[in-house]
């Protein structure tokens, strides 16, 4: 049938089963907004394109399907860039659709014109400029296929605005779901050989396990090997907290996990890359501990650390192939078992534990700063896709949008753990939550300063203090001004009781937890 470009776009989103999209209108994409009005798709209007992009990411991270974000040309498009970079770093499937100035005006520095295709190139898996209405359907279908296949990631589709108003033939197509990449038998055999030769393997699980739904297979292997399991930020939830050899998140503030890494004789990484952050990875290199890497992206192999053996393939298919070849192992004695719990403990960590205990099975999002570390180590997360954080990019302001998106993917109550610094970046999205009745619990761990910066500056013995905000914002009052509930918890109150009191009432709520300025520093 003959449809205009905007209708073709919406039909293609419906083909993909898209129910919710996030965005912000502007002159170059208004035709799409007209078409949306007659569709089955709910559009969630954000306060800022960055918030919309984080919401689409939250939707994707919670559901596993590509999130969709809409923005107009120029500033609308450039405001997506941080979200695209975040999705790229954490391999989150995302389809970003931007309107641009009309085809004939491209390249003339027209009003609100930006070459977003080029701008986004280093932070997207792929980008497409659509130059005729006939190309819309193939471009959208290809964008979804790319975003959701192999190592997942963001794809940008840029459409000059007049293309939305041109007509083209449209025939519905049933989208083929991308097939996960199977590993080669040869690589699996070599991996099994390495595994069977080792006595003390340790498993490190990342986002690739979540993406592949491989958590059960991971745990089968862990139990068969009697192996300790650590996760990356992206892998939180892959290993249930009840597993007796679960060591939590690998980071420098987890001494037990760091010790376990130095004790293992084979480090097995599944769907996690080696970042630049943790000393444990330096230990691997210095002690020449053999490394077995399972990843869906061949370019990750030998990128930062040299592997002894590698399996390139989907984590679930690779583990499934490896399981029957892996021999059972006796439980070993590890020195870390005798170590006392030396994890960071402060008012912030107590508040986070009290919140997740009280809220039960919630989805937790974080921003970036000291509270991100505290939450990663203290929130009780039992299943994958329940802890959403900006792992690779470390983007402050991620949490609000991500929680809103996660709610639309799941119906979950979402807990946003943030700090005063991060919350200042994107608290505007509280208006989105209020408008759409999103049940958020926003915990602002408010020390009235940029805690992580303060910590780094203290470590560097920096003089001077360009680190503190000292604005003493009343976030409870701010929340009320935006139509949400607001509660203040003073430094003196008992965290457990304060949490119970604060949660007793309608959502969304912002809880302003006042903390001493040097908490955790």
């Amino acid at each position: 049938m003959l449809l205009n470009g905007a209708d073709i776009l919406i039909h293609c989103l419906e083909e993909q089963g898209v129910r919710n999209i996030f965005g912000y209108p502007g002159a170059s994409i208004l035709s799409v907004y007209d078409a949306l009005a007659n569709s089955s798709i709910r559009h969630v209007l954000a306060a800022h394109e960055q918030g919309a992009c984080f919401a689409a990411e939250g939707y994707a991270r919670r559901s596993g399907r590509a999130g969709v974000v809409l923005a107009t040309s120029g500033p609308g498009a450039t405001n997506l860039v941080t979200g695209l970079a975040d999705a790229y770093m954490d391999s989150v499937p995302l389809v970003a659709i931007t309107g641009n100035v009309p085809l004939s005006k491209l390249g003339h520095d027209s009003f609100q014109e930006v070459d977003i295709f080029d701008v986004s190139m280093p932070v997207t898996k792929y980008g497409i400029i659509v130059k005729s209405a006939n190309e819309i359907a193939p471009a959208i279908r290809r964008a979804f296929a790319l975003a959701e296949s192999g190592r997942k990631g963001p794809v940008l589709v840029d459409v000059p605005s007049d293309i939305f108003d041109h007509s083209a033939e449209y025939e519905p197509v049933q989208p083929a779901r991308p097939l996960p990449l199977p590993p080669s038998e040869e690589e699996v055999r070599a991996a099994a050989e390495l595994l069977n030769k080792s006595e003390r393997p340790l498993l490190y699980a990342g986002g690739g396990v979540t993406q592949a739904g491989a958590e059960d297979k991971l745990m089968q292997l862990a139990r068969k090997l009697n192996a300790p399991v650590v996760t990356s930020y992206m892998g939180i939830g892959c290993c249930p907290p009840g597993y007796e050899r679960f060591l939590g998140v690998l980071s420098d503030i987890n001494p037990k996990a760091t010790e376990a890494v130095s004790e293992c004789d084979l480090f097995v990484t599944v769907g996690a890359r080696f970042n630049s952050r943790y000393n444990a990875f330096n230990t691997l290199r210095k002690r020449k501990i053999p490394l077995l890497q399972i990843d869906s992206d061949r370019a990750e192999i030998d990128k930062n650390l040299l592997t002894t053996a590698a399996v390139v393939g989907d984590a679930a298919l690779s583990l499934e192939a490896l399981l029957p070849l892996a021999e059972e192992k006796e439980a070993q004695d590890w020195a870390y078992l005798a170590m006392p719990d030396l994890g960071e403990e402060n008012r912030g960590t107590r508040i986070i534990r009290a919140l997740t205990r009280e809220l039960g099975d919630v989805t937790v999002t974080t921003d970036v700063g000291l509270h991100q570390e505290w939450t990663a180590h203290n929130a009780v997360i039992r299943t994958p896709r329940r802890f959403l954080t900006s792992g690779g990019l470390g983007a402050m302001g991620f949490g609000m949008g991500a929680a809103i998106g996660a709610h639309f993917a799941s119906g979950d109550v979402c807990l946003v753990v943030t700090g005063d610094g991060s919350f200042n970046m994107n608290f505007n999205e509280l208006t989105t939550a209020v408008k759409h009745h999103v049940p958020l619990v926003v915990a602002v761990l408010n020390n009235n300063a940029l805690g992580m910066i303060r910590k780094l500056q203290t470590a560097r013995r920096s003089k001077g203090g360009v680190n503190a905000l000292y604005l003493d914002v009343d976030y409870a009052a701010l929340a009320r001004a935006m139509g949400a509930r607001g509660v203040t918890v003073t430094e003196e109150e008992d965290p457990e009781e304060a949490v119970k009191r604060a949660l007793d009432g309608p959502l969304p709520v912002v809880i302003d937890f006042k903390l001493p300025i040097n908490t955790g520093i």
Partner: protein
Amino acid sequence: MDNATRQIVSILVNNQPGVLSRIAGLFSRRGYNIDGLTVCATEDERWSRMTITVNASPATVKQIVAQLEKQEDVVKVMDFDVRKVVTRELLLIKVAVGGAKRSEIVDLCTLFGAKAIDVTADSMILELTGSTDKVDSFVKTLGVYDISEMARTGGAALERGADALATTVEK
């Protein structure tokens, strides 16, 4: 960089806008230095061929190939051992010479297999096709004269023998 050698990476890419930018961006972003780059049409209009010369260790070249292979617009990647390929560069060089010195230049051209393609009373343009080393040494030799300007292409490379990059592409 330790054990860095000159390597040639040949890539078949989709012939469409933005591809050169994407590939060049990948190299700069990941810190791979490009010594030479040639892009040309191929016998198949769907594809372009990029010939990239890099000075890198074998491990880096492996990474480059892995990063290139996952690009959506890359059809096929081959990294060649320089000994198994023939490469040629084209040099055009303008020398400000006339009179008696012209015959010296003509002698050099004979030695190197270069051609004079434009001659005026006080200038000559010479053309040379050859390996990177040969072109380098010709430029160096002409250095004693007054070189006005020069233009030089990147390398074009083909594997020796009957194999072809395009025939290894799964149709």
